[in-house]
């Protein structure tokens, strides 16, 4: 009896699948994906090199650093907070791993670097999670403080790995596995892992709960402070992975290499459709958002425009993407504000 009911339910679901309501919902929720596909088709038609395997894998490599950071930031944002400290943290961790490479060897350098990143994430997490301070200001303060610490550490100098041939540290930034660049692997593997964490674990559900409705989640026994703390650890660890790619690719580092990344990363997250209010968003969306940024850059360069043309296009695309999202939820294009 119950089985028959369930089956009936399923078949009526199937009927509803092609109704107008559903088409609208798909357009609303997957708008950015559809726009992305249209955009790829348009670029492929305008340049025959664009759709080649080489070019696509180049774009993936290029976005891997911003993308890897954006994965962690996405989780922080879904939890209802911001993380502006990632740019400075990228500078710090890259400098650290490169500088320590020659002093204590690659393995030690990587371990210390991740420990430092997690420590920074823990400070963010303590202040935003447990002390309940505003995340924008806390991470803005951390942005400044970490930038200072990086400069103090380096004494204002840039750092280099002296022996660039005799080390396996080149693996993370320069090598290929099965024809695909290692940075791309790191980006995609981390994306899959974090997607599973967000969608298939209790922790993931709690992140959405805490970001979507803190009060309700508190009454349901979710400890907001712990969840928020963990999101910052994840964000810091992801930034550490990005530093691994960057340090290994360049085999050196400027002490302000991550400057401005915090807002670019956020642009990718927003473009994907993760709401800054928290409680909604996803890892695949961010991957698409970051890829859109990458393909805009790549496509415009292939079409012969100067590199700053991408910034103008990004401006328009970000606002249009979020506007369409907001407008479809509102049910009308413009606000009724007088």
């Amino acid at each position: 009896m119950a089985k028959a009911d369930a089956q009936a339910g399923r078949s009526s679901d199937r009927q509803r699948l092609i109704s107008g309501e559903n088409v609208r919902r798909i357009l609303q929720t997957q708008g950015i994906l559809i726009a992305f596909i249209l955009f790829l088709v348009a670029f492929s038609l305008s340049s025959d090199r664009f759709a080649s395997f080489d070019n696509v894998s180049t774009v993936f490599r290029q976005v891997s650093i911003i993308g890897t950071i954006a994965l962690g930031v996405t989780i922080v944002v879904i939890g209802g907070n911001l993380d502006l400290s990632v740019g400075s943290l990228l500078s710090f961790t890259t400098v650290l791993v490169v500088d320590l490479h020659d002093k204590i060897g690659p393995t030690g350098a990587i371990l210390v670097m991740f420990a430092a990143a997690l420590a920074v994430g823990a400070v963010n997490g303590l202040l935003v999670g447990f002390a309940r301070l505003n995340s924008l200001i806390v991470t803005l303060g951390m942005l400044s403080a970490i930038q200072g610490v990086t400069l103090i550490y380096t004494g204002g100098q840039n750092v280099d790995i002296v022996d660039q041939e005799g080390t396996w540290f080149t693996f993370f930034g320069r090598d290929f596995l099965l024809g695909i660049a290692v940075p791309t692997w790191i980006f995609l593997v981390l994306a899959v892992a974090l997607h599973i964490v967000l969608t298939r674990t209790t922790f993931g559900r709690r992140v959405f709960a805490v970001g979507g409705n803190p009060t309700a989640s508190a009454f349901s026994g979710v400890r907001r402070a712990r969840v928020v703390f963990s999101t910052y650890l994840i964000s810091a660890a992801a930034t550490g992975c990005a530093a691994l790619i960057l340090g290994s690719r360049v085999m050196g580092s400027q002490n302000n290499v991550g400057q401005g990344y915090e807002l670019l990363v956020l642009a990718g997250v927003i473009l994907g459709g993760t709401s800054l209010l928290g409680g909604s968003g996803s890892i695949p969306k961010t991957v698409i958002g970051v890829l859109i940024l990458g393909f805009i850059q790549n496509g415009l360069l292939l079409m012969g425009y100067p590199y700053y043309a991408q910034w103008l296009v990004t401006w328009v695309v970000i606002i249009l993407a979020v506007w369409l999202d907001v407008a479809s939820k509102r049910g009308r294009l413009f606000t009724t504000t007088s």
Partner: protein
Amino acid sequence: MTSSTLHTSLRRVMIVPPIWLILIACVVFFSFAADNFLALNNFTNILIQTSTIGLIALGMTVVMINGNIDLSVGAVVALAASLSVGMQDQLGILPAVAVGLGSGMALGFLNGVIVWKTGVDAFIVTLGAMIGVRGLVFLYTQEQSFFSMNFAYADFGMSSMAGVPTLAIVFLVFTAIMHWLMTSTSHGRNAYAVGGNREAAQNAGIRVGWHMVANFVLVGFFAALAGITLSTQMGASTPNLGINYELWTITAVVLGGTKLAGGSGSILGTLGGVLTIGVLRNGMNLMQVPAFYVLVVMGVILIAVLFVDQRVSRREAEELKL
């Protein structure tokens, strides 16, 4: 009765933004710790150094009291500086400066109208503009730095009136004007109303949309003015001018007690925030502490101020409940 009078008088005292206490503490500390700190021309130095971020912060305060934010100010600094230096050969100095100021106001208008009409959060709209306007700067300058061929331009940056540097006077005069605007005009009152409760403000008959646009034009104007005064100091402009200025400005404004959520804040507080950063920078510089440490100290102070502020407002909220 008595307790409520006590409470009001406490409120009076609290009207002096708490950042001024930190500022005074910093001044006292550096007076003892750094030899040349307590000299008149050092203070005018501090005023010049802080005038750039200070001018932007005046506009940012109003926008943030509205509950909005403007991340595009750093890019506007570069655009206005590039236009006013780059166009003065063809147009002459004053028209070129006018073009620079106009560009900032036009972009502010654009930001404001987009925020108003689309309902997209100001953070996102101006984050987009931050990236895009930098593109406009590179498009216009073709990645070149410009130098002012007319020495009158750079002379203005170095000039002083009655012993006080002109740029410091510009900053202080605009601070006074903005303080007046926020405390004594209906526009100022409306700014708090809109930030406190946008819907209620609209129901009370405030034209919220135009009000917000006006404030975005203001912050655009001040960012452009800051870019122009900065370029007069160097007699030049570079396309990378103003990078990260949005973050410094927000830091100064928040230090001054303006809430991100909107509805509260003051120009006097912002002045305190701007001066605190300036005094810290200058004092540590005089003590020959490397500039790097200032970044750490500022980050720590920002978080500490936030921490104290939260404790105070929580206690106030509990008192209200009683």
